[in-house]
């Protein structure tokens, strides 16, 4: 009896409302679900790829552990060249993109040009890597735009020369393609950071103070802004470096064919008819993992070294480093970069409508819509797949992201640094290293659900971008709206659906457009997870780029760019008509 009365005395007198409980429970579980969703497939995929490297592949009747795979790998002719190509092209392109980004920021920091450059480069972001590679390939090919523009009046070429681009053995084409694609990305991320209201204002004021103290604008940027800006750029830069060293689409379209980069070679080995090559491929994947990890460590180490070496420089009072000279160089560089990008896009468009176009004419002699018409007839299935996969993946990604961000606010605790790091996980681990394993696991579970498998795999790559895009807008919501709504009796669920979401309509659409763009551009995940059964615009484009007519390639590349663009246009237009916010 005393036990019962004790219990009654000790128990709380109120029970939480049932429906609010369900929503809150769902929200509370979301971060853990997100973590599981990101970590398990990547780790699981890694393990499934790496085990065969050590000889454990029951499917091939190898069950003894050993270093057989590595021996095969080491004996591959030209392995050193492949490794050097991967490492070199990755590191050089990232360094170039990073340096030019900094120079552009420093030279144009106070000038209205920065805004103009931002608006010019923003649409470039949504171009998938494959389309960008195709465009760049057309630009530097022997009969491409550049040689046409300088022939025959400058170069004296009447016929297309034997050129080494784009499939040159030194990877210069790869470096060019990667740099042109990653430069806008890094620049726009930096501008996004600077656009944050408090941080941006503080940094601009500090830049002004440095100017007043006698520092020329470029020096002021490097000595005052960069130290505060860099930590916020670190993860995106590492993601760029990881991608550049392990990407498949770029080297496949722009790189040499006989001795490709390591990632491309691994892909060929995995796809080879001889199943025993899988062991070698797994060993190769481990090597790729080590290489990318090594590059990331090298970058972080380099960061520390520069910090140590140059910390004295910050306060030595030196104000002029030939600022005017560097400003001119940067202007020239910027013009070159934008010129290259525009030229490759123009070239692409012209190829897609070109009839007869003999070298060295700069413009096609005939224009025709035939290519578009025939491509569009064949495109229906891939187009449908692309859209379906994109929409389902993005929908999932948005829902999970919103729930996780809501949980952050309901628990009043910001997300741990661990979670923020894990968000980047699929972007930092080379996809060639875990995708094959993941696909193998998916086949184990269910090998008929190709669509589901593809969506699941796409989700891994779409989630980080959708999350990063939505997070800043969500966190900037005035918490007082939620407090007021609660004081008026609204449950957390109602607050979420009727107060927060409508306010976030525009950011949600932008994040959705971004997610769609990422999904539309995926190559390897679609190819592998779908078992080759699901064709999307991107998979078709890559296949065509290495084989068929240039004109059909161009049409597919343009489709690849048009689809995300439509998404962004919708994201821009719809908020003007629905859920109009007070700002408009």
């Amino acid at each position, binding site marked *: 009896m005393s036990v019962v009365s004790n219990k009654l005395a000790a128990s709380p007198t109120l029970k939480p409302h049932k429906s609010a409980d369900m929503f809150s429970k769902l929200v509370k579980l979301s971060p853990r679900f997100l973590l599981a969703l990101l970590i398990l497939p990547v780790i699981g995929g890694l393990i499934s790829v790496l085990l065969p490297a050590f000889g454990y592949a029951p499917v091939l009747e190898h069950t003894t552990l050993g270093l057989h795979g590595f021996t095969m790998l080491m004996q591959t002719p030209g392995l050193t060249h492949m490794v050097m190509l991967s490492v070199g092209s990755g590191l050089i392109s990232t360094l170039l993109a990073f340096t030019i980004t900094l120079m552009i920021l420093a030279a144009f920091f106070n000038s209205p040009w920065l805004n103009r450059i931002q608006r010019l480069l923003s649409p470039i972001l949504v171009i998938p890597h494959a389309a960008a590679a195709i465009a760049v390939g057309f630009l530097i090919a022997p009969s491409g735009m550049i040689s046409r523009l300088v022939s025959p009046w400058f170069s004296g070429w009447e016929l297309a020369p034997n050129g080494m681009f784009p499939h040159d053995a030194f990877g210069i084409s790869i470096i060019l393609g990667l740099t042109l694609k990653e430069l806008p990305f890094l620049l726009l991320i930096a501008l996004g950071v600077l656009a944050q209201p408090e941080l941006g204002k*503080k940094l601009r004021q500090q830049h*002004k103070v440095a*100017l*007043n103290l*006698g520092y020329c604008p470029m020096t002021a940027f490097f*000595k005052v802004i960069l130290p505060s800006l860099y930590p916020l750029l670190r993860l995106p830069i590492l993601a760029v470096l990881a991608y550049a060293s392990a990407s498949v689409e770029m080297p496949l379209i722009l790189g040499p064919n006989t001795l490709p980069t390591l990632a491309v070679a691994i892909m060929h080995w995995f796809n080879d008819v001889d199943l025993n090559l899988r062991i070698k491929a797994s060993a190769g994947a481990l090597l790729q993992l080590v290489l990318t990890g090594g590059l990331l460590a090298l970058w972080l180490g380099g960061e520390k070294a520069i910090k140590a070496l140059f910390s004295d420089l910050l306060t*030595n009072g030196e104000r002029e480093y030939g600022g005017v000279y560097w400003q001119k160089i940067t202007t020239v560089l910027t013009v070159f970069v934008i010129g290259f990008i525009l030229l490759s896009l123009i070239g692409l468009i012209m190829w897609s409508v070109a009839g007869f176009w003999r070298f060295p004419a700069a413009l096609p002699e005939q224009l025709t819509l035939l290519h578009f018409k025939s491509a569009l007839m064949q495109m229906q299935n891939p187009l449908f797949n692309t859209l379906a996969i994109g929409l389902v993946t993005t929908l999932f990604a948005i829902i999970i992201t919103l729930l996780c961000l809501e949980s952050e606010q309901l628990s009043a605790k910001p997300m741990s640094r661990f979670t923020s790091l894990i968000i980047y996980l699929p972007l930092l681990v080379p996809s060639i290293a875990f995708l094959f394993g993941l696909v193998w696991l998916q086949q184990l579970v269910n090998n008929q659900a190709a669509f589901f498998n593809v969506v699941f795999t796409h989700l891994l790559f779409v989630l980080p971008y959708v999350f990063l895009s939505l997070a800043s807008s969500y966190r900037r919501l005035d918490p007082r709206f939620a407090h007021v709504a609660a004081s008026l009796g609204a449950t957390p669920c109602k607050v979420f659906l009727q107060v927060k979401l409508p306010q976030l309509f525009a950011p949600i659409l932008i994040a959705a457009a971004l997610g769609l763009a990422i999904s539309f551009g995926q190559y390897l995940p679609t190819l592998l997870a779908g078992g080759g059964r699901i064709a999307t615009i991107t998979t078709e484009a890559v296949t065509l780029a290495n084989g068929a007519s240039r004109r059909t390639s161009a049409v597919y590349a343009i489709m690849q760019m048009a689809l995300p663009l439509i998404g962004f246009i919708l994201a821009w237009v719809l908020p003007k008509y629905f859920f109009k916010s007070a700002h408009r």
Partner: protein
Amino acid sequence: MQSSLEIKNCELYRQNQQLLSLNEQVKGGEILTVMGPSGSGKSSLLNWLTGTLPSGFSANGEVWLNGENINNLPAHLRHIGVLYQDALLFSHLSVSGNIAFAMPKGNKKQRLEKIEHALEQVGLKGMANRHPDNLSGGQQARVALLRMLLSEPKAILLDEPFSKLDTQLRVDTRELVFSQIREHKLPAIMVTHDHSDAEAANGKLITLNLAK
């Protein structure tokens, strides 16, 4: 030659609407006080003087510093020091780092000695290695003052520099700033809302009116 800051026939426009018109000379050691309601162009005047006028504003007139026309000089070559409302100390540098940043090039040891000496004079002895975010508002204001003074400016502009300080701190910091201005005989222009600031400055007072 005595130092002086001259504003010759300055007409300031915001989007083609005239904000103010000014013709003044400030001698070394004197403080010109400019007062007026928000939107009357006080901060824009200071921006024009330092060469950092934002887009949307335009101006006629000339700035003459110590007998030289500095109108065509870019902002970083004008040698005009500014103190703002916020101390705006660089958070990636320590206190001594902030001050060293402002000083001209020189022997490292000498610069450090100079910094230590300066910190002691304003009552911040031993704080050279502190992080600026850990200082109180008044301490930050004093470090900002040192940073500006040790950059050896030829003129000083004050943009409501005491408005974020509480009353007693305000009086003390104001005295410190003004005594330094008088000691170094630098021409100074101060923008403020506070009449007691104007009285303590003991110089000419100009009141701007809102543009009609």
